[in-house]
């Protein structure tokens, strides 16, 4: 297919949201509240097949009888689930006509992150011309993927175009009844992404790198399904370093990864939801269920940098079902001001010779609370399972807290489990030492924090790592002094 530049530009203008994974349904917002009619309504709006509607309804029925979890180490005003509207049409209209109308504080943050003016406009919802540059990137991208037989589209499209894959795998790793938020998501998920890598294919690029700018308005109940067929490889990036302000207070996403025999999935997240202001008001509640299933010799790595949200509740996990499979979890969680995070992972060893690694770095500042919660479970048939866990906490000041809750359940004597935990504080002596070398306190903290987080930052794809570093710097600004 030969395009002229003009044609490309046209195509992207008209199909702007094709790659942004937004649906095109013209509709008003649904009335508040949740019942069977609403669930059916959402499914209808999306013109889903009947099996999908049924699947959602079943999830809703399960959810109705469930209770919100109480065990995480966080306190918040519980959302009123009947006071939320569960469907609203994607808003493609620009919110502003020019950057001058946008909150200057937000723009300042964009600048610090090194985001281009065009991207700034997109992120803030300002009307924007399509830049030639992104047209060519998008086209090359699309072509390369298609040539390899890789499917990368919105979950709604996948339900229409690849029902056999969706039907087989959705809910196979995170069942509808898994937990309160997973059930809710299953009933009402609005959209999300779908990705399938065929047998033996190595995805030639980091998926979704380019789409960063389009993900600014991610939905409240996202659903992601990634399937790596036998012997394939994919590196998937989720999220956005730019601060996402959202009217939706509650976010409950579900991410399912399936790595078939000999496949590998690397899933990296940089999450920066609005954490609330300095007094702790108005932040996003982020309750996410992420889980991956490894078949024989498969490997799943979760890497995450979490700096946002008022309340975060998140445990990317691996079910190591196949023999010789490997699960990894690398995490940096930063909390400042009044943020609360309860994050960690679960490594479920079912197969023989399965291996898992957990590296968790928690950084707390202000009056925040940062908890690591991890479960390592070794099944009775999992011969020679091995786990190594390391949880390090870094405290800034005297008013924040770091907590570690490791749970270990071993039912096979051949297992080798290692757990290390440290807590340290940024000392005045360290700061003075840096100051004496001409490095001011803000920069000194950034340096110390980057050093502390290095093992995890190193796991991120290059350009994401650079952004994540800047993000850490910004998140901790003004936290000492």
């Amino acid at each position, binding site marked *: 297919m030969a395009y002229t530049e003009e044609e490309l530009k046209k195509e992207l203008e008209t199909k702007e949201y094709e790659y942004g994974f937004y649906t095109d349904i013209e509709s008003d917002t649904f009335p508040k509240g949740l019942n069977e009619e609403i669930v059916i309504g959402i499914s209808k709006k999306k013109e889903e097949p009947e099996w999908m509607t049924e699947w959602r309804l079943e999830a809703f029925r399960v959810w109705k009888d469930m209770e919100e979890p109480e065990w995480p180490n966080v306190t918040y005003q519980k959302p009123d689930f009947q006071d939320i509207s569960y469907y609203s049409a994607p808003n493609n209209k620009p919110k502003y006509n020019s950057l001058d109308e946008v909150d200057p504080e937000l723009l300042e943050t964009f600048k610090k992150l090194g985001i281009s003016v065009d991207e700034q406009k997109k992120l803030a919802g300002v009307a924007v011309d399509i830049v030639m540059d992104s047209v060519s990137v998008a086209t090359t991208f699309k072509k390369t993927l298609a040539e390899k037989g890789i499917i990368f589209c919105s979950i709604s499209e996948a339900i229409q175009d690849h029902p056999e894959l969706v039907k087989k795998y959705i809910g196979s790793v995170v069942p509808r009844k898994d937990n309160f938020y997973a059930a809710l998501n299953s009933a009402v998920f609005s959209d999300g992404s779908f990705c399938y890598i065929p047998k033996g294919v190595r995805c030639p690029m980091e998926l979704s790198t380019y789409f960063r700018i389009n993900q600014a308005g991610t939905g409240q109940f996202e659903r992601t399904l990634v399937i790596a067929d036998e012997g394939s490889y994919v590196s998937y990036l989720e999220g956005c370093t730019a601060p996402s302000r959202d009217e939706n207070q509650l976010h409950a996403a579900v991410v399912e990864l399936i790595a078939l025999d000999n496949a590998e999935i690397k899933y990296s997240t940089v999450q920066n939801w609005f954490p609330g202001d300095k007094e702790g008001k108005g932040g996003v509640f982020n309750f996410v269920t992420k889980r991956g299933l490894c078949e024989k010799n498969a490997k799943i790595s979760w890497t995450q940098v979490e700096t946002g949200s008022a309340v975060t509740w998140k445990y990317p996990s691996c079910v190591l079902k196949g023999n010789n499979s490997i699960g990894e979890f690398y995490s940096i969680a930063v909390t400042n001001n009044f943020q609360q995070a309860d994050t960690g992972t679960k490594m479920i060893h079912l197969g023989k010779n399965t291996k898992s690694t957990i590296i968790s770095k928690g950084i707390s500042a202000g009056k925040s609370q940062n908890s690591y919660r991890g479960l390592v479970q070794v099944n009775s048939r999992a011969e020679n399972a091995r786990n190594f866990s390391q949880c390090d906490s870094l405290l800034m000041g005297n008013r924040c807290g770091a907590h570690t809750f490791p749970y270990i359940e071993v039912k096979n004597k051949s297992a080798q489990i290692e757990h290390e935990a440290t807590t340290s504080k940024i000392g005045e002596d*360290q700061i003075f030492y840096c100051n004496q070398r001409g*490095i*001011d306190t803000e920069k000194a903290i950034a340096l110390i924090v980057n050093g502390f987080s*290095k093992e995890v930052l190193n796991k991120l794809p290059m350009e994401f790592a650079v952004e994540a570093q800047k993000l850490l710097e910004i998140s901790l600004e003004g936290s000492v002094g």
Partner: protein
Amino acid sequence: MLEVKDLHASIEDKKILKGVNLEVNAGEVHAIMGPNGSGKSTLASVIAGKEEFEIKKGSISLDGEDLEELAPEERAHNGIFLSFQYPVEIPGVSVTNFVKTAINESRKARGLDDMPANQMLKLIREKSELLEIDRKFLSRSLNEGFSGGEKKRNEIFQMAMMEPKLAILDETDSGLDIDALRIVANGVNKLRSKDNAIIVITHYQRLLEYIVPDFVHVLHDGKIVKTGGKELALELEDKGYDWVKQETVV
């Protein structure tokens, strides 16, 4: 260059410096000796701007500019360098990365761009050769797991990289083996010029055989009680501090 006048400093109401006077000119080397706890490190910290110490009286100026209002990093930008008696560890930050950051932050303060990477590499090569530092060492985390001597050598490496106007070496010799002492002292001597000055805090005459001071001061109970030439250090080694202490009483 440096002028310390009637300096009184305390920490949590404990008086440590009780009227220090010291004048250091460009091109000079001054040695400060004195018993444990007499206030040598405190004097160095106060000059470098450590905020825990409160200046009760007196003044410090560098090239005529009063330092009191300047933050520690601004003093560093003005050319003050302190080789710490107890260098701190910064896990995960390599020596190279740290020095690079330090140099570029100082350049930024002077309105210069970052030092180009090739120039930085050349400088690192040159200075690590001068101090006989294995380059693998420079990719290790700053001071983490360094031996006592390695820490001190690393301090002088940073000094060599930053080329300060006024360097204060606080017991840089302690922990160094005989060969290392010679290498480090030799490195320091190479950095001497008519434009910069060095204050050496030490307990031992040995270092002063290599880095020959123009003046030797004895600090006792927060005051400089005696000043002399390089022979004073020998005399002290011979007679101990009681001798100066007694003299002050008289």
